[in-house]
């Protein structure tokens, strides 16, 4: 134990050891060493290291620690991919009423495609088997709700040549192949629903629903953006380091004037 404490005492800064090292070693020889003495010397060495550092060293150390923490966080965070597809209602009339009709159609189709039953079918498809962990913990209804609110997005896109209304379907998932497969399913469901509506009520509104861009296979995850997270860690660490130096200086000034 004594040996361990003497070894720990070497963690004091060199300048400090030059002045007090011999005395501390002599004290360690004289006492009946206990476990708490080991931690006491370790803590003393760390405090002394910090107090003898100049501001630049403190800022550099905290900045590095920030970057390291951010790096670990970035590595441990699950990747998420986004697949997208673009569909459009095509019409050859180009009338404003066509666009309004297309918007109404889109709302109706979206309600059916994103319904509880429709999404539950996609989630439980054996080939997809989405959110297996969530499904063990929470009811399927909640999984569907989460998927609808957090993973799926249907957005109206700028009108393109020959189209009345274009919209983007996107899905976010940790597996890029599954993200693409879900978007493919949604595109199919949109199309089938549109055909079914046309057959049931007769042709109305735009003349065609077509796929403009097929479901993409994402090459890179959209989250986490690791370089950005590490850069944020560096910046946060630097700011924290500067603050620590300012607080430390103020506290030292106050304790000296007290």
């Amino acid at each position, binding site marked *: 134990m004594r040996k361990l404490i003497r070894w720990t005492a070497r963690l004091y800064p060199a300048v400090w050891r030059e002045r007090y090292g011999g005395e501390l070693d002599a004290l360690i020889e004289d006492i009946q060493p206990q476990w708490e003495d080991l931690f006491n010397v370790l803590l003393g*060495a760390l405090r002394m290291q910090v107090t003898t550092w100049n501001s630049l060293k403190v800022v550099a150390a905290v900045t590095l620690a920030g970057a390291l923490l951010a790096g670990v966080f970035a590595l441990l965070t699950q990747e998420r991919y986004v697949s997208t597809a673009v569909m459009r209602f095509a019409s050859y009339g180009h009338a404003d009423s066509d666009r309004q009709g297309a918007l109404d159609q889109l709302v109706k189709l979206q309600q059916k495609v994103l319904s509880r039953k429709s999404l539950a079918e996609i989630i439980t498809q054996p080939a997809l088997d989405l959110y297996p962990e969530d499904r063990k913990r929470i009811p399927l209804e909640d999984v569907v709700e989460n998927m609808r609110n957090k993973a799926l997005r249907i957005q109206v896109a700028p009108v393109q040549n020959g189209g009345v209304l274009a919209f983007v379907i996107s899905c976010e998932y940790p597996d890029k192949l599954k993200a693409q497969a879900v978007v493919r399913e949604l595109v199919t469901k949109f199309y089938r629903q549109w055909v079914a509506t046309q057959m049931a009520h007769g042709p109305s509104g735009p003349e065609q629903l077509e796929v403009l861009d097929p479901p993409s296979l994402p090459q890179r995850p959209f989250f986490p953006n690791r370089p950005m997270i590490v850069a944020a860690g560096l910046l946060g660490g630097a700011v924290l380091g500067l603050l620590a130096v300012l607080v430390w200086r103020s506290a030292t000034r106050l304790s000296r004037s007290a």
Partner: protein
Amino acid sequence: MSDPTLLVLASLADGKKHGYAMMEDIQRFANVRLGPGTLYGAITRLEQRGWIRPVDSGDRRRPYCITGAGREYLQTQLTSLGHVVKTASRRLKHA
């Protein structure tokens, strides 16, 4: 009272002592065991502030003595502490 700097000053108030002697003395009069890291942290701060100074000695167990400024500081602290003790005792009696 567990402030290591005050305990060290109080220990040196009656004469020079080296590290181990201070530890023993403080344990005896305050019933506080200062670890080696805490003791030498306090010694470093006190010497930097000029409240104690090392006494020339050929031994590694270098003794320290309290300086005039250290004595003055200790006196101020004890007076302040005395006021707190008196006030607290009076209030306890009337409670």
